[in-house]
């Protein structure tokens, strides 16, 4: 890092628009120096992927570059031919989904060799496929190189993608949400790997993500995008300590944090869609500090401090991010299991005793969960945490009667439940409702929202059509959707709206227990904050008990009272959220907690300036003083 700072990527005034002239991104300028990681943060629809693709001179169908200039390694890329020559050689891409990016019929060493071959003579170093594998922390052995992508884990696949991207010796690597599909422990390893690659090879990286906590740990600079424009840019420390743009602040306040649990504060309203960017500041309609001219005039990207740029007229009045601890629930449950908490708290709605579930496969049965026991109080929230394959979804399905229990029992209000849904009584089915992970698949595309929500109200509660209509209206209000949504089809709604409709459908049955299977993992953080707020109100206002199934410790810390950590289908640690998150006893829980990114941990590390935890992976860099 003794090299003089060399700008390798310069994008000036990039604008990309639809054929109709509606802008997707507007006036985006970025600069990336060798050995620097720029974190480009934004939610879906903010234009971050469009920005990344335009660096390659690539545009999706129906979309064209309107203005702007790209310069990589001192070369201004003007036409398609120049872009084509630059791709791979000067700039390369690591995709979000490595499983789909790698050719399934090509051995991984060959895939890397292919890329090296395509750029032979142009690449800086005499790379070999096996050397590349070693550089990204994989085995350099012959047999490993002969593997096919499906024989690797998700994390290994992503490393192969990184190796492919690096093998042509590019100056800039663009990483588009490279760890989004991976579990936290793998994510931490990949992030480590990226930081050391940056340091060793002086590669400049553009890291695209929706996760502020992740970039806070690796980026040397952060650019936050909203509605196609960069709204704030600067050093992570400066931005995260005192965000100046109200959107950045809103994002921070929406991000759950397991190190310092907090009550989330959701932002008002929803993000504007492509094509209806308002004339003034795009964030103005949702902004708590907007003044009249925000709606008519576009603020410029203003330098508020050395190297800290903000696009807001009123940035001086942006309040600091408050850190409100979650509601008193933790205190209540801290009383302990035996002692009855306030009033009816002692009655368990749901009890799961020694649950065991198996999957039948071609090679006999596979154990999905064994000896899982827990109980759920009225209005309480228990979280099941684990990585993919830990059996948590199977447990949810068993409780909902969608998957047979192999042994053990489930008791609902003291009564043992039959194993499959159609053997249960109407009343039992009504009392347990499940909400699924993928909002896109949760709703029947052929039915309107009102028909979807009314169905369980009519079949499980026997309401008349008129009563069901009233119920639909009440529930839409409860999940904070406007009434006009009632006549929409799911395809006309966003992911967050679909998920809220799915919750409303579950509530229409008037359940005692709501099983939430990763219901926010497909949502943007700001939408997640709204959904989590809603779930919290359900528990507190309506006495609905929640079984929260998630891989996200931050989500657990905002909502749950008790948590069970699952590994390979068995509970490895159990306790109150405070106990488990603060003093994890099991080695696996400790690793999980270490690996999970956390904003507050990074902030604390800056605060104390001591090198703790993940900062050791080399995140703190001298801020660029230009």
């Amino acid at each position, binding site marked *: 890092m003794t090299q003089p700072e060399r700008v390798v990527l310069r994008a000036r005034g990039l604008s990309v628009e639809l054929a109709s002239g509606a802008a997707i991104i507007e006036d985006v300028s970025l600069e990336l120096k060798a050995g620097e990681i720029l974190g480009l943060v934004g939610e879906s629809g903010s234009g971050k992927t469009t920005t990344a693709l335009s660096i390659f001179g690539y545009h999706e169908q129906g979309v064209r570059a309107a203005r702007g200039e790209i310069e990589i390694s001192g070369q201004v890329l003007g036409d398609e031919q120049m872009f084509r020559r630059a791709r791979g050689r000067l700039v390369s891409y690591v995709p979000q989904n490595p499983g789909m990016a790698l050719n399934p019929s090509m051995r991984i060493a060959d895939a890397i060799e292919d890329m090296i071959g395509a750029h032979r003579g142009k690449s800086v170093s005499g790379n070999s496929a096996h050397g590349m594998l070693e550089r990204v922390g994989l085995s350099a052995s012959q047999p490993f190189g002969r593997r096919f992508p499906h024989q690797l884990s998700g994390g290994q696949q992503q490393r192969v993608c990184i190796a492919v991207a690096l093998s042509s010796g590019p100056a800039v690597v663009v990483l588009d949400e490279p760890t989004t599909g991976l579990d936290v422990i793998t994510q931490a390893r990949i992030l480590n790997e990226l930081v050391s690659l940056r340091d060793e090879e002086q590669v400049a990286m553009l890291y695209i993500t929706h996760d502020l906590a992740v970039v806070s740990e690796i980026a040397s600079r952060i650019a936050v995008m909203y509605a196609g424009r960069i709204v704030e840019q600067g050093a992570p420390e400066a931005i995260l300590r005192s965000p100046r743009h109200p959107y950045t602040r809103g994002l921070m306040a929406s991000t759950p944090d397991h190190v310092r649990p907090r009550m989330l504060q959701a932002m008002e309203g929803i993000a504007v*869609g492509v094509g209806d960017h308002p004339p003034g500041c795009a964030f103005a309609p949702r902004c708590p500090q907007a003044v009249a001219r925000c709606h008519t005039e576009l603020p410029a990207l203003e330098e508020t401090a050395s190297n800290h740029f903000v696009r807001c007229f009123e940035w001086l009045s942006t309040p600091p991010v408050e850190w409100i601890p979650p509601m008193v629930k933790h205190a209540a449950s801290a009383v302990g299991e035996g002692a009855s908490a306030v009033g009816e708290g002692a009655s368990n709605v749901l009890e799961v005793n020694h649950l065991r579930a198996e999957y039948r496969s071609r090679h006999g049965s596979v154990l999905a969960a064994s000896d899982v026991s827990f109980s759920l109080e009225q209005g309480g929230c228990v979280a099941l945490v684990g990585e993919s394959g830990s059996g948590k979804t199977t447990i949810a399905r068993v409780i*909902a*009667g*969608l998957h047979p229990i192999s042994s053990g029992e489930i008791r609902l209000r003291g009564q043992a439940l039959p194993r499959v*849904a*159609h053997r*249960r009584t*109407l009343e039992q*089915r*009504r009392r*347990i*409702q*499940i909400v*699924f*992970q*993928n909002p896109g*698949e*949760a*709703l*029947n*595309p*052929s*039915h*309107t929202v*009102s028909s*979807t929500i009314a*169905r*369980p109200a009519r*079949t*499980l509660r026997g309401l008349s059509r*008129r009563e069901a*209509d*009233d119920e*639909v*209206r009440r529930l839409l209000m409860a999940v904070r959707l406007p*009434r006009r949504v*009632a*006549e929409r*089809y799911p*395809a*006309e709604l966003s992911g967050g709206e679909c998920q809220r409709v*799915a919750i409303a*459908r*579950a509530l229409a*049955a008037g359940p005692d227990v709501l099983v939430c299977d990763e219901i926010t993992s497909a949502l943007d953080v700001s939408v997640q904050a709204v959904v989590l707020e809603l779930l919290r109100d359900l528990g507190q206002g309506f006495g609905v008990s929640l079984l929260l199934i998630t891989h996200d410790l931050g989500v657990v810390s905002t909502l749950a009272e008790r948590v069970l950590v699952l590994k390979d289908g068995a509970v490895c640690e159990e306790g109150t959220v405070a106990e488990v998150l603060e003093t994890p006893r099991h080695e696996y829980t400790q690793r999980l907690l270490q690996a999970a990114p956390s904003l507050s941990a990074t902030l604390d590390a800056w605060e104390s300036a001591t090198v703790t935890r993940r900062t050791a992976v080399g995140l703190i860099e001298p801020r660029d003083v230009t």
Partner: protein
Amino acid sequence: MNTAVLPRRRRARWPELLAHDWGGRIGAILLFIVVGVALFGSSFAPHGSTVTIGIPGLGPSPGAPLGLDFVGRDVLSRTLDGGRSTLLLGGAATALTYLVGVTIGLAAGNARSLVDPVLMRSVDVVLSFPALLVMLLAVTAFGSSRTVLVGAAALVLFPGVARIVRTATAEVATKAYVEAAVASGERAIAIIRREILPNVMPPIVADLGIRFSWSIILIASVNYLGLGLQPPTADWGLMVSENRGIISTNALAVIAPALMLALLIVAVNLVGDAYVRQLGRSKSEP
């Protein structure tokens, strides 16, 4: 405000659908004309459809604008009369095909038991016989009545429908909204009708036009071989085949019924495609 009933919106009806879609509009107009000719054409026929009025294979003349067929009957009158039989047989065969095919496909796709392989392997067995052979066997065994022709055509055509529906059903059956219905204890029939059937409609409708054409062609080819409908019945398919001998003297005797058949098939396909486009639109609106 509490007494106000929620607005109920239904999926686009045919007239709305056609107002937005040129293909569908043209198809609907064509269909209207062809079906009109088939149903009411015979009342405008200048001659009886089975009466010989002149020399076989005579070209167009003032009394017979489309000339005469291979036994000297008026081609125009027979064309006006022959649509009813074609439409009826083709329509009935298609309806039966879909009734059997969709039922079997839904049952197999939704079953997580032996029912699925048993049903589908039986379908494969039927599929392995050449289409025309099955038709001919049926006709020789049970005689060439209209019922037998319709049944035989459906027997030949239903496996394709069953396979498509099964695949689509199996995919839809894994969706979370189906699971939600299962978890709330809905009956299998309700799940199929409410959750699955509406979502397997696009592939079902997409090749309705093609299957309708096939059923007409199948029945026409049996007629062509002289084993189906017996002369002197007027039928477009039969007319094409019986007049092939005089195509050099009065080509119109073949062209006229063939054109009507083609128009019918094109029209059905256009309307079917428009319907599928409409389904796609209402599901992918932003």
